[in-house]
């Protein structure tokens, strides 16, 4: 009996060592546009999701993002954003970047030079995804409300810091903090499908202000601009910079 127990034990050990399991969980997200107007049209709405480099959604109340050591003099994809909604015109997302400074309490604050590039990557309207690499972005999409199908012929436009970009190839903005630079810097992207668009379907002018669901995606690249020769000029320790994301359009 004792032998049998030992043999069983060995078999169990073997099978345990051979078995490996991997559990991957992904979060699927969806939205239902509500209506408080009493009409068949949903309310205009926008929402934002920020994801880290592993595509994990961050809380909107201040999750930390670590910048790895290889981001020194090298671009690192720090986070991505997914800005979504159903607003037909003027939907704005803005990023406010603060200087990167020592976290140590007391003593002299040391600022670390860094660069952050906000890059618009693509837009999905309805079922169509368009990358920001072409010179223009036009398309059609259908939107159904109250049994009526509205067809949008749209020309999507983007303004960066209130300057309209004629080419989507330049749909990005870079901000740099030089040594000693302590100012806060803001970058905004304003999307507008309204100008240059026509809507057919229904009767009379279209004034609902909503269209098909869109998703505007982008990402932020960060680099710490300290060379190997200058690294000793900065105090050892942990540095942090705050990035504030704001959206308008709801």
């Amino acid at each position, binding site marked *: 009996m004792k032998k049998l127990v030992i043999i069983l034990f060995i078999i169990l050990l073997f099978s345990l060592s051979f078995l490996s399991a*991997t559990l991957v969980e992904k979060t699927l997200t*969806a*939205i*239902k546009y509500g209506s408080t107007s009493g009409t068949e049209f*949903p309310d205009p709405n926008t929402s934002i999701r920020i994801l880290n480099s592993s595509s994990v959604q961050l809380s909107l109340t201040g999750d930390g993002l670590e910048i790895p050591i290889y981001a020194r003099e090298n671009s690192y994809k720090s986070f*991505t954003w997914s800005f979504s909604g159903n607003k037909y015109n003027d939907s704005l997302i803005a990023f406010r970047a603060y200087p990167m400074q020592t976290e140590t309490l007391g003593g002299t604050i040391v600022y670390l030079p860094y660069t952050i590039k906000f890059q618009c990557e693509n837009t*999905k309207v309805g079922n169509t*995804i368009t990358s920001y690499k072409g010179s223009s972005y036009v398309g059609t999409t259908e939107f159904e409300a109250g049994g009526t199908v509205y067809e949008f012929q749209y020309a999507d436009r983007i303004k960066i810091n209130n300057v309209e970009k004629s080419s989507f190839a330049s749909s990005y903005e870079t901000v740099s903090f030089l040594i000693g630079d302590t100012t806060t810097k803001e970058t905004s992207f304003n999307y507008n499908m309204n100008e240059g668009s026509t809507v057919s379907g229904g009767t009379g002018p279209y004034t609902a202000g909503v269209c098909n669901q869109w998703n505007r995606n982008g990402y932020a690249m960060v680099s710490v601009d300290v060379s190997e020769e200058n690294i000793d000029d900065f105090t050892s320790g942990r540095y942090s910079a705050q990035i504030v994301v704001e959206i308008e359009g709801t």
Partner: protein
Amino acid sequence: MKRILILLLISISLCFPLMAGTYSEAHGQYLMGYVNSSTQFDVELFEDVLPFNLEETLVKQNNDLSVVLGLRVGVYTLVVNTNNYSLTVTHDKLVKDGTVSQGPTNSVDYRFDLFYTDLLEVERFKTCFYDDSIVLTQDDGISMTNKSFYVSINATDAEIDLLEGGNYSSTISFNFEVGV
């Protein structure tokens, strides 16, 4: 001499088709081999199509179990060289964020379709709903690279109309086991 010339002409003419051929540019190919058992399993969710609109035409209910319609929300890669594995995929309902008690006004089921390549290299798919699961084993296939999965809402338009406005989320679980 005449014979030699004839033979020479024949041999030259035989060579022409070969000489006329031009080599294409060399394309590198990777040949992979494994020592001992090896597995690879990755899942990618397409965050740039999320969140999707529950009322979007693309994700409308599809009751035909022989056809996949819906939104392509991700891909997975599964490569194994062992005899025994299982991949079990489950998901819960799409539930409105902050919901404590689920009901027809704050949760909705969806259909999940997973493509795979069987042992004969034929493209197939399996389907599951929230109270069900998809199971793939070595009998279904051993090499799936960037295979897609789709979702469509398992509710009528009237049932979707009942849902409250807001953000909804659901967890999709991929449980991959080797040596089962």
